[in-house]
C-alpha cells in the first residue's frame, strides 16, 4: 500500500494535464482542470491519513485509543474543494458566454484562445 494513494493522485494530475494539452473543447478543458484539482485534493487527504487514527474529538474518543488524526489536511482539502467549485463555475459561465458569441466551443476556432 504505502505510497499507492500518492501515485494514484499524481496519475489523476497527469491525466488532467493530458486533457488540457490534447483537448480543444472548452468544457473538456474545464473538466481537465477539475481532474487536476481532484488529484491534488486526494494528495492532501492522503497526506493526513493515519492508520488506525480516530477523529480528533476528545469527548467522543473511545477509552484506550492510540492515535488521533491532526485535522489540518482535511480542513485544507475542504477549502480547496470550495475554491475548486468556484473556479469551475466561473470557467463554465465563461464557456456559456463564449458559446453565445461564437456559436462554438472549439478553442481552435476562437481567435483569442490560439497560442
Amino acid at each position, binding site marked *: 500500500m504505502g505510497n499507492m494513494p500518492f501515485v494514484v493522485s499524481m496519475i489523476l494530475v497527469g491525466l488532467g494535464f493530458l486533457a488540457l494539452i490534447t483537448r480543444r473543447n472548452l468544457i473538456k478543458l474545464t473538466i481537465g482542470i477539475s481532474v*487536476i*484539482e481532484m488529484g*491534488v485534493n486526494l494528495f492532501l487527504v492522503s497526506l493526513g491519513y493515519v492508520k488506525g487514527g480516530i477523529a480528533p474529538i476528545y469527548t467522543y474518543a473511545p477509552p484506550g485509543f492510540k492515535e488521533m488524526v491532526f485535522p489540518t489536511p482535511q480542513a*485544507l482539502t475542504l477549502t*480547496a474543494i470550495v475554491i475548486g467549485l468556484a*473556479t469551475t463555475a466561473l*470557467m463554465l459561465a*465563461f464557456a456559456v*458566454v463564449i458559446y453565445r458569441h461564437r456559436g462554438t466551443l472549439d478553442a481552435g476556432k476562437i*481567435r483569442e484562445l490560439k497560442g
Partner: protein
Amino acid sequence: MVHAPVLAIAVPLLGAFALPLLARLNRRARDLWAAGIAVATLVFGIAVAVQVFASGRPLVYTLGAPSPTASVTEGGFPIRIVLVVDALGAYMGIIALLAGAVGLFYSFQYLVEEEGKTLGTSLLLLLWAGILGLVYTGDLFNFFVFLEITSIAACALIGYRVWEPRPPEAAFKTMVMYTLGGLLVLVSVGILYGEYDALNIAYLSKLITGTLLDKLALGLLLGGLLMKAGAVPAHMWAPDAYGEAPAMAAIVLVANTQAAIYALLRVVFTLFGGALASPGIGWLIASLGTVTVLVAVLMAVVQRHLGRLVAYGAVSQLGYMLLAVGVGVVAAGKGFGEVALKGGIFHMINDLASVGLLFLVVGAIRRAVGSVDLLSLGGLGHTLRWESGFFLLGALALAGIPPLNGFASKFLIYESTFKASPILAAVAVLSSILLLGVGVRAFHGIFLGPKTRDVASSPRGMLVAMGVLAVIIVVFGLFPGFFIERMVSPAVQAILGGRASYLAAVLGG
C-alpha cells in the same frame, strides 16, 4: 490600531459582499459605502505601514489568540494563523493600496450603471482584499487561499464586458493559467506540510534543510508564481487580460502581478533563504526576465489594439523586475546585488504609476471614442488635452526617460545588471529604447494630426485619478533618493538580512 493588519483585509472583504445588498436599497448609499470602505482600508493599510517603518521590526498579528500580539508558539509549535508584515510587505501593501484606491476612484465615473457598475465595484473590492491578504499573510495555506481569491476576482473583472466577444475569451484563458499556477502552489504546500507538519512560513523556514522534496516544492512554487506573474513562457494570457479588462481593473491587475513578484521574493529569500538560495535560481529568473522584456517589447511594436500595446508594455516592465530579482539572487551578499534589488523593488511602484496611468488613459479614450484601434484614432489631442499630456508622461516614464520615475529605478537595474552580465544589460537598455519608439509612435497616432471628430472630455473624477498617478511619476522622478531611503532600503534590508528578524518576530526568541 493593534488590529490594523487584519482589518485592512477584512474591511474590503466585507465591503465587497455587502455592496450588492446595499445597491438593492439605494445607489447613493452604495456609492457612499464603497467610498467609506476605501477610506477605511487606506487608513488601516497606512497604519500598518507606518508601524512597520517606524519600529523597523516585522509586525505580527495572531488570529484566534487571547491577545493579537501573543506569540504564535506554545511549546515551540505554531498552531495559529498569523499575519506578518515586514518592511517588504508594508511596501507592497502601499502599492496595492495605491492601485486599489486609484482604481476605485476612477471607476465611480468610468463604469456605467446599466453595464453592472455594482458588480464591477464589488469585484474590485474583492480583488483588493485578496492582494492585501496575499501580501500580509504569514501562513502558506492562507497564501494559497488569497492567491485563488485574487485569481477568481481578477478573471471575473477581465471578463466584465460579457457583451463583447473577446473579454470572456481572455478571461477563460487567464483562468486556466491562474488555476494551474494555483494548483502547483497547492501541491507544493502539500509537500511541505507532509514533510514538516507545518504551514507557518517562519517555522517552515527554520526547518527546511534542502532535501530533494524541498527542491521539488521550491520548483513548483516558482513555476506557479511565474505563471501567475505572466513571465515568458507562461505570458500568453497577460496581454489579453490587460488589454480586455476595464481600465480600473487593469491597474489593480498590475498590482496583482506585482504581488506575485513579492511572493517570489518571499519564497526565495525568506522561506528557502536558509537552505536553498543558490545562484542557479538567480540566473534562471534573470534570463527569464530578460526574455520576457525582449519578447514583450517586440510584440508591442506590431500591435494595432491600443489596450494590447500598453499591455505588452506592462509585461515588459514585469521582465525588468524579474531581471532585478534574479541579479539580486545571483549576487546576494555583494554590493551590486543590493543595488539590483533596490532597483527592482523601486521599479514596482514606478511601474504601477506609469503603466497604470497609460491604462487609465486608454480607458478614457475607449469611453470617449468607443474604439481603441490605432488605425482609426487620430487628432484626439485637440479635445482630450489632459489625456494626451498624461499619455505622453506615462509613455516617457515607461521608457525610462530622465527626469521621470522610470529612469530612477531602471538606472539602478542597468547599473547592477551590467556588473553581473553586460549582455543582459544591453538587451534591457535596447528594449527600453524600442519601448520609447512604441510609446511615441502611439502618441503620435492617437493625439496628433488634424481633428477628425468631436469627443467629450473625461469627467473630472477620472482626470483626478490620472492626475494622482502623474504627480507620483514626476515627484518620484525628481526626488528618488528620499523614497529609496525611507521605503525601498528598509524593504531590501528585510529581504537580505531580515530573515532572522522575521523568524524571531513570529517564533519568539
